[in-house]
């Protein structure tokens, strides 16, 4: 594989609170390769957002603190950068699309101005006329109809989907080599979500930016991503190629997550939920954070004594952090079962 564009090693982020120290992210390592789409999946509190916010220096410090780690991006460590250096970096080389398009645009500035600002901040010498035509082009690229008119409108004149498009236009304004999208469609309706995902796909085809897509929706991952990272309790529990993970997951949490989803195309009598509730990050279960909810533990002491390492399966790029992941060989997710079933239905 090519050289990674971003290489994170042993990143740990903590928050000091009145109740104790929250270990939001606890020693995670992963690589992002040029041009790929990497999905980070997890439930709320799994650390999926915090791990990327830390890269851009967007963790409020205090109460937050980056306890350890390096994040090498094109030969420089993002975590060691000064605020000033980071400012030149953000929105240029690395850009971010946030979840809520209603609150991440400034309501008193025209949309065109806000997109232009992204260019002007990094390249102040670009003449105004050029910036303006670039903004119109960007809005056209993300599928905003009548971009000439829309540049002079305010965010309240944009619908939710249009605002998210404007956010994407802003993020890709300087052709970043890494685009981080944090739950970009969670606040949107399903038909609008489909539009925005389409835009993200087109944008990626156009700019060839590596994309980190943070989401809790496995469907979006299945649709858009090439590689997936599954996070639980601030740690990576599984990482690998999207097809492999969906077909043959090697971590009980991933299996539980997939099993608990109802299917759009099939009837099931009962869902198979994961018992219990997500861990508190202040008082995380010892050893493997998932062991109190895990069907594979079966009372084995190793699960609550020892934190499992992210181990690579033989001869693949598939990693899982489970002591007993070998016992899952031969297990197939309900999604892989479905392929045959759905295919059969279609042909009959």
């Amino acid at each position, binding site marked *: 594989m090519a050289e990674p564009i971003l290489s994170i090693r042993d990143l740990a982020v903590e928050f000091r609170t009145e109740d104790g120290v929250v270990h939001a992210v606890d020693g995670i390592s992963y690589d992002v390769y040029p041009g790929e789409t990497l999905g980070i999946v997890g439930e709320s509190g799994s650390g999926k957002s915090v791990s990327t916010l830390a890269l851009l220096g967007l963790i409020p410090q205090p109460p937050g603190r980056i306890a350890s780690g390096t994040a090498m991006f094109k030969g420089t460590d993002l975590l060691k950068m000064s605020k000033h250096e980071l400012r030149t970096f953000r929105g240029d080389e690395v850009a971010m699309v946030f979840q809520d398009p209603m609150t991440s645009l400034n309501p008193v500035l025209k949309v065109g101005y806000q997109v232009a600002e992204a260019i002007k901040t990094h390249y102040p010498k670009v003449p105004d006329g050029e910036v303006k035509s670039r903004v119109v082009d960007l809005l056209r690229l993300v599928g905003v109809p009548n971009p000439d008119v829309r540049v002079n409108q305010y965010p309240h004149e944009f619908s939710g989907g249009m605002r998210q498009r404007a956010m994407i236009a802003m993020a890709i304004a300087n052709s970043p080599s890494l685009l981080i999208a944090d739950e970009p469609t969670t606040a949107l309706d399903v038909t609008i979500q489909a539009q925005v995902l389409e835009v993200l796909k087109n944008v990626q085809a156009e700019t060839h930016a590596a994309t980190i897509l943070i989401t809790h929706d*496995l*469907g979006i991952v299945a*649709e858009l991503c090439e590689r997936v990272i599954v996070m639980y309790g601030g740690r990576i529990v599984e990482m690998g190629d999207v097809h492999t993970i*969906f077909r043959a997951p090697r971590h009980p949490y991933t299996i539980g997550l997939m099993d608990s989803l109802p*299917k759009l195309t099939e*009837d099931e009598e009962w869902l198979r939920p994961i018992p219990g*509730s997500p861990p508190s990050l202040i008082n995380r279960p010892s050893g493997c954070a998932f062991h109190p909810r895990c069907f594979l533990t079966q009372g084995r002491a190793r699960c609550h004594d020892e934190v499992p390492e992210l181990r690579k399966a033989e001869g693949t790029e598939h990693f899982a952090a489970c002591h007993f992941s070998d016992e899952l060989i031969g297990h197939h997710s309900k999604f892989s079962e479905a392929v045959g079933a759905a295919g059969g239905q*279609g042909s009959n």
Partner: protein
Amino acid sequence: MNATSGHAAVDLAALEAELDDLEKRADAMKLLAEKILAAAGVLAFAVIVTVFAPWVRVSRVPKIAVAKTVHGTMGLGWIFLLVLALSLLVAVIGFRGRKWPVVAAGALMLFGMGAFLVDVMTSVKTFHPFMKLGAGAAHGASVVTTWGLDLAVAISFGVGAAAAAAAVTTWLWDVAEQRLDRGESTLAADKPGLLRIENLVTYFPIRAGLLKRTVGHVHAVDGVDLTVYKGETVGLVGESGCGKTTLSRTILKLVEPTSGRIYFNGRGISRWGRRRMRAVRREMQIVFQDPYASLNPRMTVRDIISEPLRISGGYRGDRGKQRVDELLRTVGLSPEHANRFPHEFSGGQRQRIGVARALALNPQVIILDEPVSALDVSIRAQVVNLLESLQRDFGLTYIFVAHDLSVVRHVSDRVAVMYLGKIVEIGDKHQIYNEPAHPYTQALLSAVPIEEPSQRGKRKRIVLEGDVPSPANPPSGCRFRTRCWKAQPICAEEEPALIDRGQGHPSACHFAEIVRPLDLVSGA
């Protein structure tokens, strides 16, 4: 009771038409009473200012002298007029569709005005203002001949007349309302299903300007028919703003319907007031979307769950405590949780508390308004399973409002798809998911991300253009036509009815045709 003969059927149809008339009349009367009341309020205020507020100088009239005369000689009338004004205030503020404040205020007003007039007659005697109308200041006591007193009498007449008119209109309104209620009860006995909604409309006024005048309406629910049978789950899907939440709240009358009928369990409840609805809500409960906002943070779990028991009078000492413990066990919590506060629970547990509260009175119908969308994926399945097992154990009927199409498929027997305040398609879940006839349903289904990466790109995706139009100004004809790829001129002219167009289930599209958006496209 069952009307089987043709004759009875005709009568029922006539009754329906009559009820529509009655409804219009009742609403007109209510509006009139409201307006008259407002006018009377303004008049009464004028009385006070012109005569009885010596500290307000609106003219050069020696007010203090007038007031003194009035105070000195007409104590009784003054007090009554104050009562009058106050009662009007109460009536205007307290009216809001209720009748008793109008009647009470009307009576008080007449009484106060009468006393005032008697006082004027007896104490002012020879120079009663009416006697000297046009004659100028005949008497030496110029104090009494100022226009202030004339005005007061004239205005109090106005107030009295307005009060009487308001009382009469309210009475007429009440009569119409009672006839309506009798008519609805007659019809209700004949309606199929446990819950039936006919042509339900809920508009929200848009108020603007200094006077907060109504400049338009948000057509949140605009003519919905739905029948819910005992023991089934009806899923209500649609995008945000399609009116699914408003519909569910209107059914429970947490929002007043603008028009239309709701029949529940043999009763016509569409125009029932708060008190009568209390009995209905014992049988029909709701679980809200946000488990963080729907539980009072200052109440213990026991208080929250027992609140419906206390209100309905069933909470008595040990028996009530046992009931709460039992409910907690039913929803998968333990009785020890009863003394804790909501903040000590996770989202999923809170939603269980909300479910326990809804179950407390053994309802027949539970409206579930996005019960799992605020929960994490792994917890969502737990709550869905809980809801399903409760339905089996207690024979519950669910109306399940959600935007997550996979969850709705899993829980529902029948599904209604809403778009801009209307049901565009309804059928059993296999018809809706496997053989959708309406383009919107097809687009909605195809927009859901494919769950399996190996099927990527193998499903035909219909990406809709644009956004949902504003419900304040919905498009003419078919509301979906602005985003529809099948739209023809007829779609703008004629609104498609929700009828079976040969696909086996009703859909509201002129060009209804089964498309299977979930099937894989071979060779793609």
